[in-house]
């Protein structure tokens, strides 16, 4: 086998004590199409930033075509033949689509400053060639009619395609695609897959791509690396990855927690620690790989979500997920979807309005026009309409002003006092610990601390990590 085009050995990247990537190993042979997958925060984009010189590795080596990339600036790496696209699109927004591509020919322009300002020598010939090649690229990506439009005015899918066209204009040997299908619909994703296959053959490219769309990854990649918590945990062909038990990504591992009747229990931890995953596993949106979940003596692991609601567990999801096109009243009615007792529903609706007087004032208002705080109230009210015994709350304070957060938390206490058990996931650890009886601290998918909420709030470790010292 030939020498790998890109080789990355024992690379670690530490940001202020936190390891974003550790002992990362990867190789890509010339002509290969390789996928890099893993959960959010696993370090995929960090890996791209290391390959392209945006970050310098703390330890380890990265070589490209036999040469070390350490210490090179991003533009030098581009000149060596690595091009990339960005997860959050970074086009030259105010410039025309054509100019976006023309800029990328920068490293291959064969005239200097004097020739350009005095319009001498190679200037005209070179400009003609760049224009021609740029238009050819735009044509491949079906952007030719948009050539004179400003990049910011393109539809989303077209912006993603322009990012790839622009990267190709740098004439790379290796193309790094960071979530090229993000935000695309299935039809667009299918077209994108065909396009990636085609440009790879046409331009003789080697491609490494990050993607969450498994159909795309499994469909076109020849080899896949699975990244978790900054290290590669599996590597192989799509078929091998599908069968490899290690290949499955564990968002949470061996978690044990109990919630007693009448308690408020909170789960705190950093982004990506697995808090939401835990809630979603309890509410049946995810199935646990191993282990059991018991609710009132009944094993509910793997029971479908809608049945779990019937058993008395209701979830208020992160980001509210209210039905924005419907009125407040319709939202609440949908919360009681599984119930048939008309009188009971009416009584519960009254109780929700007592808890959230603002919702009563706005019962006929379309939910999407409510403020963030009111939407949170509606999401909670909707969950209460199924008359749950256990209420799962995912980040109720997200995006709310401090005063509103206080109000929401005091309502959570009221709900609890009237007999509903609460399991609360929260970034705002201070608030959560102040109302909870007990707490669990989750870190990279494992429970690292647990106990009485007041004691945890006082503990040195928790203060440092989650309460801001």
């Amino acid at each position, binding site marked *: 086998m030939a020498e790998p085009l890109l080789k990355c050995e024992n690379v670690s990247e530490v940001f202020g004590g936190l390891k974003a990537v550790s002992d990362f190993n990867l190789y890509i042979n010339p002509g290969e199409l390789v996928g890099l997958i893993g959960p959010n925060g696993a370090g995929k984009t960090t890996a791209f930033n290391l390959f392209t010189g945006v970050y310098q590795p703390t330890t380890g080596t990265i070589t490209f075509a036999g040469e070390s990339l350490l210490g090179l600036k*991003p533009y030098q790496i581009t000149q060596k033949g690595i091009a990339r696209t960005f997860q959050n699109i970074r086009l030259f927004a105010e410039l*025309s689509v054509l100019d976006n591509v023309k*800029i990328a020919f*920068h490293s291959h322009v064969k005239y200097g400053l004097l020739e350009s*300002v005095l319009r001498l020598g190679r200037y005209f010939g070179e400009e003609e060639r760049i224009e021609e090649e740029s238009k050819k690229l735009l044509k491949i990506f079906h952007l030719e009619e948009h050539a004179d439009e400003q990049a910011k005015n393109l539809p989303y899918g077209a912006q993603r395609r322009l990012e790839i066209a*622009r990267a190709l204009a740098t004439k790379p040997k290796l193309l790094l695609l960071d979530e090229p299908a993000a935000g695309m619909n299935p039809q667009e994703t299918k077209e994108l897959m065909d396009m990636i296959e085609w440009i790879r053959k046409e331009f003789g490219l080697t491609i490494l791509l990050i993607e969450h769309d498994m159909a795309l990854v499994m469909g076109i990649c020849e080899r896949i690396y699975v990244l978790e918590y900054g290290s590669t945990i599996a590597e192989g062909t799509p078929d091998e990855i599908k069968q490899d038990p290690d290949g499955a990504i564990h968002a949470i591992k061996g978690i044990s927690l109990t919630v007693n009747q009448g308690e408020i229990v909170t789960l705190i931890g950093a982004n990506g620690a697995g808090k939401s995953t835990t809630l979603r596993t309890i509410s049946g949106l995810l199935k646990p790989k191993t282990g059991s979940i018991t609710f009132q003596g009944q094993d509910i692991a793997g029971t479908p979500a809608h049945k779990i609601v019937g058993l008395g567990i209701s979830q208020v999801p992160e980001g509210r997920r209210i039905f924005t096109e419907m009125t407040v009243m319709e939202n609440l009615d949908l919360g009681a979807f599984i119930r048939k007792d008309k009188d009971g529903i009416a009584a519960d609706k009254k109780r929700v309005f007592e808890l959230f007087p603002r919702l009563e004032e706005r019962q006929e208002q379309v939910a999407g026009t409510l403020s963030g705080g009111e939407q949170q109230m509606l999401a909670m009210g909707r969950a209460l309409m199924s008359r749950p015994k256990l209420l799962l709350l995912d980040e109720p304070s997200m995006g709310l002003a401090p005063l509103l957060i206080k109000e929401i938390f005091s309502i959570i206490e009221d709900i609890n006092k009237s007999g509903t058990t609460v399991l609360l996931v929260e970034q705002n650890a201070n608030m959560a610990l102040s109302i909870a009886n007990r707490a669990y601290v989750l870190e990279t998918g494992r429970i690292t601390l647990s106990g009485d909420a007041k004691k945890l709030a006082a503990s040195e470790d928790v203060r440092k990590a989650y309460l801001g010292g």
Partner: protein
Amino acid sequence: MKSLRRNDLVMLGIGIVIFAVLQVLITERIMSSFWQLNVIIIGINVIMAVSLNLINGYTGQFSLGHAGFMAAGAYISVVLTTFFHVPFALALIAGAAGAGFLGFLVGIPTLRLRGDYLAIATIGMSEIIRICIMNIDYVGGAAGFKGIPHNTTFAWVFFIMLFALFFIKNFVNSDGGRACLAIRENEVAAESMGVNTTKYKVMAFTIGAAFAGVAGGLFAHSFYLISPNSFTFMQSFNYLIMVVLGGLGSITGSIAGAFVVTFISAALASWPEFRMIIYALALILLMFYRPQGLFGYMEITDYGPFRKILKKGGRDDG
């Protein structure tokens, strides 16, 4: 691409016609000496505005120290012509080289800064230049430099202005200019397209400073005396107003901005207290109704009638 060359010739032709008309007005003494001086000042301000636009508008680096480079060019050239009797053209070139070199030296450390920080650093830099000059007795110190030969004529200003316009127009429509635009739009993406962002920021800064140096030379040789107080921070601010008024990223805009601002100041010369009020009002109205400036990113060649004259004019046509 042939039409690009043709466009340049058409523009040059238009320029020469304008020059001829103004020159006749001056030599036939139809224009008063007050307005003669103002026509020269307009030309100098066009050079200042268009070179500042390269830094602020095209490259997106917010500089507020343009008067400092102008001062450097002015003093270098007057010392050469007055004390050493160097020919005017050479003195202007030396002034440009000196100011450009200063821009290069200052640019390397300061262009690491962004936005407000860069603006403050460049104000500081230009004040340092001014105060240094003020304390050098050799060039007259705070009292000013006296006895400068009156070398600047309308022809000198006009043709150097034309050169500056063509130079900067050609630069922004080439690969280097595209690199600068890319930096303005998104530095991370520019870098990953292979653009050495530091190099092009410093390049734009140096070119801009060099033209400010030439403008300084022309300015100084229009008067018998110059003093460091002609190059205060307020002066830099004036040039920024011209650029913003015309449109950050439009050469036509800078010409219009320089013209309008100079014309208003001259017309209101007898009522200096109203001048600042009208300035301020004009800016407030502009920010309300046309925050992108008179021309935005457009050039005069992008508009209908001119497109016809120039056939397939504009920068995107081949």
